[in-house]
């Protein structure tokens, strides 16, 4: 399908002529830059990229990429992308969406795209706020969030996007952060390489309506305590001095201090991307354990395990039936099986 281009392009070749119009300091700039940076390395001819976005600040992304792109309607990017990919599986299809677009108005398409496992990449820029409509709580805003539409605090429980994606049978679930370019680039490359729906949640700062929401995970003073980078085959270790680890006690994850407890890194939870049970627990670190505040937020590939792909199977089924039954000629379609003559 996707073949290497003859002359390697540069990130600039992926920038459209359109002036970028996000607010100064918006996390979207970083995401755009990282995408443009990795694209020349993906081995896909430029004309085979198609971006499909919905509505929201994030969805303007499409206009800034010099690829094929459709800026569609609110919440429907995933449904449109499913048709694009089904019609032409050779395209590398990227869905760009936000927390409101993907998880609120587009929630149904989000879960069914994961379930059907189209081979597309789904980037959700999560800033935990509605920005284009100027600041209302979103389905990922925390309970108690004070916004223009919740002046006394939101009374809603937020979605945990990675948990939702896993529940919808996503075959690839990752989390990254606008303020960690290298990490994001690595995640984007993995998302592209994964066959099946690759769901990437990007924590993205909205400097106007929800500033600093994720800074704890990127600021030098706090990030080592608050964030944990998960890597396949490596133990779960975090802390200012990498002194803390996570291990299982029965089915519950617990935080241990490595040296104090005489535990070696080998006794800790070793991250296994293909382990759905562990991925489920990992995805819920920050909102369902009894120690919400203590557990660090995981970043990286939480789950990646390939399984049958919708668009591949659609084509394979057509090929199988073609071989078995053969094409029906148009004249045969028109006449059907039973005809009679009138003279």
């Amino acid at each position, binding site marked *: 399908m996707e073949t290497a281009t003859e002359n390697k392009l540069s990130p600039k070749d992926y920038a*459209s002529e*359109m002036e970028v119009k996000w607010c100064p300091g918006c996390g979207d700039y970083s995401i755009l830059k990282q995408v443009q940076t990795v694209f020349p390395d993906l081995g896909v*001819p*430029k*004309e*085979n*990229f*198609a971006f*499909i976005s919905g509505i929201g600040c994030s969805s303007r992304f*499409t*206009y800034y*990429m*010099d*690829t*094929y*792109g*459709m*800026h*569609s*309607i609110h919440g*429907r990017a995933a*449904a*449109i*992308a*499913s*048709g*694009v*990919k*089904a*019609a*032409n599986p*050779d*395209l590398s299809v990227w869905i760009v969406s936000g927390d409101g677009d993907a998880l609120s108005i587009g929630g*149904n*398409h989000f*879960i*069914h795209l994961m379930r059907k496992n189209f081979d597309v990449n789904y980037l959700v820029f999560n800033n935990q706020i509605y920005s284009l409509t100027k600041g209302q709580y979103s389905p990922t805003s925390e309970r108690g969030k004070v916004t223009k539409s919740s002046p006394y605090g939101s009374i809603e429980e937020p979605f945990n996007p990675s948990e939702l994606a896993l529940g919808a049978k996503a075959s690839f679930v990752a989390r990254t952060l606008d303020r960690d370019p290298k990490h994001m680039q690595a995640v984007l490359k993995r998302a592209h390489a994964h066959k099946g729906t690759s769901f990437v949640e990007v924590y993205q700062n909205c400097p106007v309506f929800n500033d600093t929401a994720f800074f704890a995970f990127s600021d030098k003073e706090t990030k080592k305590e608050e964030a944990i980078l998960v890597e396949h085959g490596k133990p779960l270790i975090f802390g200012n001095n990498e002194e803390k680890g996570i291990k299982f006690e029965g089915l519950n994850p617990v935080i241990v201090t490595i040296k104090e407890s005489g535990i070696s890194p080998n006794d800790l939870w070793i991250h296994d991307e293909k382990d759905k049970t562990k991925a489920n627990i990992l995805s819920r670190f920050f909102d369902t354990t009894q120690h919400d505040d203590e557990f660090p937020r995981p970043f990286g590939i939480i789950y990646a395990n390939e399984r049958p792909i919708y668009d591949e199977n*659609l084509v394979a*089924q*057509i090929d199988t*039936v*073609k071989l*078995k*039954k*053969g*094409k*029906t*000629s*148009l*004249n045969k*379609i*028109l*006449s*059907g099986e*039973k*005809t*009679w*003559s*009138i*003279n």
Partner: protein
Amino acid sequence: METVEKKAGKTTEVREADRVVVRFSGDSGDGMQLTGMQFSDTAALLGNDISTFPDYPSEIRAPIGTVAGVSGFQVHFGSKEIFTSGDEYDVLVAMNAAALKVDLPKLKKGGFIIANTAGFDKKNLGLAQYPEGVNPLEDESLTNYTVLQVDVTRLTKEALADSGLGTKEIERSKNMFVLGVLFWMFDKPLDHTLKFIEEKFAKKPEIALANEKTLKAGWIYGENTEIFNTQFKVSAAKLPAGEYRSITGNHATAIGLLAAAEKSGLPLFLGSYPITPATDILHELSKYKANGVKTLQAEDEIAGICSAIGASYAGNLAITTTSGPGMALKTEALGLATMLEIPLVVVNVQRGGPSTGLPTKTEQSDLLMAMHGRHGEAPLPVIAASSPSDCFDMAYEACRIAIEHMTPVILLTDGYIANGSEPWLFPTEDKLAKISVKFLDTPNGENNVLLPYKRNENLVRPWIKPGTKGLEHRIGGLEKQNETGNVSYDAKNHETMTRLRAAKIEKIADFIPLAKPDSGKEKAKVLVLGWGSTAGSIKMVVREMIDEGADVAHVHLKYINPFPKNLGELLKGYEKVLIPEMNCGQLLQLIRAKYMVPAIGFSKVQGLPFTTAELKEKIKDLL
């Protein structure tokens, strides 16, 4: 019914008839649809013209024996041309008391009732809510009819006594007994149904044998029993010469779409969510995988149309099929397709509304939604099929217009023609109109610049597939700058684009047939102007009235937006314009608004087609 003759042995009267209507009526589980179809197919194969009308409840299995669970199948067949499924029936098959209760009102006086007496026991009479102690088969209430009482249940059991089958399977065969009786009554051979049974139950020979035995037992019962002393002879109709097949509207729609894909050379994509009464189109197209057809059963109606928009963007001939409630859900995406200016066919098999309404009953009440059901100024071509086989032509036309004019097209059919069937003088491949497709593969502007919204002489923009080297560009729902397609909020540009989009649709009038009378002349006292599935009833009535000397004509609209260019002129030739519709006057509004003619509406919203009698009465009032 004309001549009478006697047969040897048992005294049987043989009546010649031009046209006969039979109504099969029973419980939802009694197999009436299948029985009716078999009877109809046999009649068609023998050269009768036919029109069928399946009329069933929306509950799959409503409580057995109740009025709510009655499922009917009506077939009108004859030696003359048949345009409707018939106002009233000559023969009513009533498998139980509820069926009789529901369908008796439309049985002709003097008509035949074939009643399954087992369905008139105390329990069934109670379920049908006849008063305690009342059995219509035993009192005087049916004296105006010829009642033939047959204990179908018992006779079927007897026929299958040594079949080794259980009670349930035996019960299921009883529709075949009735069919056998009917075949005897109408002097039709069993061959077609025997072959059907053999094929359908190829893997269950014991069931095949049981059905075959029961069918034959029914025929023999008719032949030997004294109570059956009338046979009908309906000769073959004088239809135009050629090869025929039987077809329902939904089936015709499906193969119309297939044919357009084959003729245009485009892969066919259907994004659809199951909904009554449109689902059969999805079923049918799903069978054609070997022809490369991609069907995607979407998670909802919105995903149905959105996946189709995606597929069209990627260069497929993309379709979405639905009915009223689904149409409502698709409106926002239709606006997107209008803005993108990409080909898309939306088939709305109308049903009674609003809301869930009457899911299995017919109506023409989505016309104004098709015309205007989008926010913003978003005109679209709207076309409508007028009979089951016409669904083929109009589905094909919808594709042609969508592709050649880069626009979403709404095709309206309805439950009546979608499920109804008729003989079809089907075309061969070479008779189908050409559909030209051209994808842009090099920049179309000066200095090698791509202009995605640069229009040709018909105001049509180019279709550009992702994957085409050098033509990378962005499109979307935001207003576009003329020609470049770049996002533009410029006030004057928005007006320019709004008017260009509308003019593009108006221009389609140059590429559709002119309106002309289907019956009658271009000048008359009364014009009956119809659209969609009312065609059969109107045609039948108007032709009959013309034969009787009435100054009346019939024009049937298949193209509603844009209207045929000459429609305004044509309407001026008539003193009065009558518009019968199965809605509260929707085409009426459009015609009055556009042509300022004082057209008169005649509306019916009962989930049922017009009867020829009620139409005739209305037309007479205007003459």
